[in-house]
């Protein structure tokens, strides 16, 4: 992140210097403003989903879900930390259903636990699974296509699903192949 931040920042600053020196600060401020509005939107969705997950936890549903997915998920993440694996499962399930904002809280909690246990492999795996898109139904895309007057907005479903499956499998495979053996 440090390298990317520095590279993009420097390149953008140099371009601004030559093309539009007065536009530099407004662009940065626009970024900050966006961060403020995005944070509010995220706060709203975290409120809803954290409440949801708490009810799930206290009603014993998380435990049930985790028991079902634990054997497979334990292998996938190479972790015996039951709570962390259960959080990771909640994250993956929310991702597949495409619930906006819902995967993040359990995802962050699971990553923290994995990293605290020095299990970088599991943290990387969870991140790559998240960052290669697991969503089964591209609802945003379909809605946008329908709005733009497409004849059959949903016919994008199959190629998207195949592409996203490939990216997820490839990502998981690469993480698996490049893990540090302990």
């Amino acid at each position, binding site marked *: *992140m440090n390298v*990317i931040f520095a590279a*993009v*920042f420097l*390149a*953008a*600053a140099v*371009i601004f210097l030559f*093309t539009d020196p007065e536009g530099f600060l407004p*662009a*940065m401020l*626009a*970024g*900050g403003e966006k*961060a403020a509005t*995005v*944070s509010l939107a*995220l706060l709203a969705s*975290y*409120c809803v989903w*954290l*409440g*949801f*997950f*708490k*009810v*799930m936890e206290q*009603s014993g*549903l998380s435990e049930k879900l985790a028991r079902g997915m634990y054997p497979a998920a334990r292998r996938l993440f190479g972790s015996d930390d039951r709570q962390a694996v259960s959080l990771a499962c909640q994250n993956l399930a929310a991702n597949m*259903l495409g*619930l906006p904002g819902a995967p993040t809280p359990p995802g*962050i909690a699971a990553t923290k636990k994995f*990293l605290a246990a020095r299990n970088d492999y599991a*943290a*990387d795996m969870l*991140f*790559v699974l*998240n*960052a*290669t*898109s697991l969503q089964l139904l591209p609802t*945003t*895309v379909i809605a*946008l*296509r*329908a*709005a*733009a007057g497409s*004849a*059959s*907005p949903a016919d*994008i479903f199959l190629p*998207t699903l195949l592409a996203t499956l*490939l*990216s997820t499998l*490839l*990502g998981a495979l*690469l*993480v698996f192949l*490049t893990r540090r053996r302990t």
Partner: protein
Amino acid sequence: MKYAALIIPLLFLALFIWALVRRVKLYDCFTEGVKGAVPLILSLFPYLVCVLILSELFEASGLSARLTQGLSPVFSFLGIPPEIGKLVLLKPFSGSGATALLSELLSEYGADSYIARCACVAYGSSETVFYICAVYFAGSKKRLFKPVAIALAANFVSLILGCSLCRIL
């Protein structure tokens, strides 16, 4: 596709009924969960700011336009329409920016055109890698090069596949 909208209300309904059967005090429990939301967003805030400033600079400076232009021979060599290059470059930084760009492309080229379909696949099969990275690894001192590189590479390869699938499907 109408049924997709049912997922969320049904999910909540099922959970709440289940919780009531298990005699969970819904109000107390839900509020208990919400308590965590403000600390969570506070811990993410600095990282969000950095990523969003970065995405703004990337766009507003014209850097993304220049990169798109420079890379367009590469894109067309790989079977990716150069028109969607900007979307491909922007998506890792910003989801909302990519959404806006996608709807622009849809109205410019027509929702059922090949370019628009490729754009949809590019959008739907990738994720906001840098954004997720900033949020999930917020505050960790871990080296992030490997996971980020893997995620970007996997998304890119699947994009090439997606664009060729759009030709035949």
